[in-house]
């Protein structure tokens, strides 16, 4: 079991409340996934620069010094930090790898920041000050591990390329064979997690020109197992379920937002929920919303 939540705002007046609403949703899914949790926030504050969500290799890591060396703006959050740079991601990531090889890159992109770790949603939201965050889109996950170890690296969301965020409730059964195929095409993996395979498959398809919907159609064809997926890019938000749909999903749509969660409990506190169109995505349907 795992829990998923997502909130894709249509009404800018709600953007100041994004973190607060998303944290409430995530905490409502605590008992679906108490071992690890993660949340992704999309906002427009990078103003065209690229944000890197980085995790410290050890307590007391000197982020200011790293920021100076890389000429990046530093926003430290607890022990970890988001660095903002005007450089291209290829140059920045190789410079980062050279000067601070122990720092983990959790995500990067013009809009996306990802925070995840072992621990309850309340702990993670508190540590990364999620309730104070504004933005236009949030994706969250609470994990009850089945396929691989309980570590920060194995927790969701997975974000293998700029601004892509992928969360999963379920388990892929043929992920090792799909992974072998992807490795044959030069894809490099960081963990032995099944969800990372799905995320990298979608990333590869999109790098080859597929849009998100097409990439998810490829995933449904290639990957076997149980899944409810919530996948987002800078401007899109998509939900799919496997042919048996043994993992739940509920969507609520209003003129102000599209919200998705594993269970309605996570949606019940959203503004205007009583007037929302609440429905369950059916097996193999690709539901996709764009900004």
């Amino acid at each position: 079991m795992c829990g998923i939540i997502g909130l894709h705002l249509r009404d800018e007046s709600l953007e100041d409340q994004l973190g607060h609403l998303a944290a409430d949703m995530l905490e409502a899914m605590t008992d679906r996934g108490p071992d690890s949790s993660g949340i992704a926030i999309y906002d427009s504050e990078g103003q065209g620069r690229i944000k890197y969500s980085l995790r410290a290799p050890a307590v007391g890591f000197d982020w200011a010094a790293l920021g100076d060396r890389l000429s990046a703006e530093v926003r430290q959050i607890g022990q970890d930090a988001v660095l903002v740079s005007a450089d291209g991601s290829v140059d920045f990531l190789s410079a980062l790898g050279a000067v601070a090889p122990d720092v983990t890159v959790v995500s990067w992109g013009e809009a996306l920041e990802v925070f995840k770790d072992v621990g309850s949603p309340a702990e993670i939201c508190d540590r990364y000050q999620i309730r104070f965050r504004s933005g236009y889109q949030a994706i969250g996950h609470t994990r009850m591990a089945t396929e691989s170890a309980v570590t920060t690296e194995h927790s969701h969301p997975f974000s293998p390329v700029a601004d892509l965020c992928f969360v999963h409730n379920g388990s892929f059964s043929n992920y090792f064979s799909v992974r072998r195929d992807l490795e044959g095409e030069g894809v490099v993996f960081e963990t032995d997690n099944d969800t990372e395979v799905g995320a990298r498959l979608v990333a590869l398809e999109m790098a080859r020109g597929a849009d998100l919907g097409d990439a998810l159609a490829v995933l449904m064809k290639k990957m076997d197992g149980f899944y409810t997926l919530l996948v987002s890019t800078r401007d899109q938000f998509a939900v799919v379920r496997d042919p048996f749909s043994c993992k739940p999903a509920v969507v609520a749509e209003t003129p102000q937002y599209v919200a998705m969660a594993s269970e309605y409990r996570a949606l019940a506190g959203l503004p205007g929920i009583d007037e929302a169109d609440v429905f369950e995505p059916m097996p193999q349907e690709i539901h996709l919303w764009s900004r």
Partner: protein
Amino acid sequence: MVTLSCAELSTREINQELRALPDGSEVLITEPRGRHSLAVGLNNRIRITIDGNAGYYIGGLCDGPDVIVNGFVGWGVGENLMAGTIRVRGNASESAGASAHGGLIAIEGDASLRTGISLKGGTIVVAGNVGAMSGFMAQAGTMLVGGNAGEALGDSLYEAVIYVAGRVGALGSDARVEELTASDVLRVKELVEATGFDHIEPENVKRVASAKQLYNFDAVKAHSY
């Protein structure tokens, strides 16, 4: 009328309060906000109204009460129901009435995938549509669908019977449409009267039941593999 608020009480507290009520009591449960396992495992003859959208397993394992939900419900409404009634004013999510042994579950909206999975003698009446794989391995009891049924309806059915007023997306393995008899019409009529879902015409439903080809292992067929 007793009122219990989900904003103030835990699920366990609510169920304990319900359990302690004498037969004939009327209860209103407020602010459910998707709460799971409300009104489960009760043996008393009480009338419970859940005022809003509720979560999983509403009314499950009950043997007596009448439960009304003024909203939609999550997975497994009336799971393993023994006796009593459950009426949902909205839609029901997956596995409504799973393995219900008795009682009546009436859904005014649609019910999702696997409605009546492993039904064991209960009755499920859905005014709207049911999703794919409904009636899967249903052993005994009756399902009546006022709308359409999804794919793989009645897959691996045993002795349960499914009536469908609308279209059947596709029959599952070993399910077949059989001729409607006078006693079938009478049974559907009773269910229409009991639920008030009078858009269903008892003479115009399809009867789906087991072809019983999976009941016994066919030793000769094994050679064809």
